[in-house]
């Protein structure tokens, strides 16, 4: 990993329009700046409920774009809805871009909550083939 040239370094961040997602994004921008990498921002939703607060709407996407533009980091935002598990989407993006680092938000969850809702963070941590930076949040 340490031999990659700056221009081709890829960093993938799993983004949600929540404080946790913002924290992950901030850390990812920081890492992208430090490593001179290209930032892939992934916002994925299973699309199987009437409401998904983890999916960014048009306004939130515009805000996200503004934050990224302000950071000056080269980036691309991918929003994937109704294709499958958000974890899979993050992992696939990481594989496809041969990412050096995946950044995710990590929050404390009860075992029941994890069982019922599934844990995107856990799956990414266990299955990623590169380094994972887990940002802790509330």
């Amino acid at each position, binding site marked *: 990993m340490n031999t990659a040239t700056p221009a081709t370094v890829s960093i993938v961040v799993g983004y949600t329009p929540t404080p946790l997602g913002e924290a992950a994004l901030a850390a990812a921008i920081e890492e992208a700046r430090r490593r001179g990498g290209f930032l892939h921002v992934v916002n994925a939703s299973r*699309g199987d409920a009437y409401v998904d607060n983890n999916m960014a709407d048009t306004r939130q996407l515009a805000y996200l774009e503004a934050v990224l533009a302000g950071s000056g980091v080269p980036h691309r*935002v991918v*929003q*994937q809805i*109704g294709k499958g598990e958000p974890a899979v989407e993050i992992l696939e993006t990481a594989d496809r871009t041969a990412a050096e680092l995946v950044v995710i938000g990590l929050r404390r969850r009860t075992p029941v909550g994890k*069982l019922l809702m599934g844990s995107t963070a856990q799956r990414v941590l266990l299955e990623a083939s590169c380094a994972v930076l887990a940002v802790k949040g509330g």
Partner: protein
Amino acid sequence: MTGSDSRELGAVPDGGRAGHGAEPGELDVDDASSSPVGPLIAGVVMIGFGILMLTQTLAIKGEGFEPEGPRFMPMLATVVWLGLSTVYLVQQLLRMARSRDGLPVQRFAHSGRVVALLVLLVAYAYAIDPVGYIISTAVFFVSAARVLGSGVLARDVTVAVGLSVGVYFVFTRLLGVYLPPGVLPL
């Protein structure tokens, strides 16, 4: 439920692979399709059903169609049904002739899943008594959730077991409604 939607946003200076796994147009399919075939078939089927009901009406024992008798109202309903089904079919044909737009109709997507769910439902109906409520319901829930597009097995199993056990005990012990215990020694 294979629908998906992907968007690519933001500056893309590297010209890398755009769009990945996108199957556009699969989401938000509640727009009316313009295919006239569905309503046409429906119109023909409804007329056929009307004729079937007409034979059933004539099969009702009794003489004549005096208004007090058992044949009058079914006859009236059947005849009006046949008339309106014909109107529906003609409406549909006229619209086809005038433009390519059909009557409002939802797209028949995921038909395989509809059939799969119906098979599950029938299997469930036959399994409740011999297998018992709890096991058949739990298995049915997990498989129905799968067919409906769920991808989180652990969650489905947890909910399935909790729901079937909970319903069984609340209904049999608290509400006095009989549900078959089946193979479980309850």
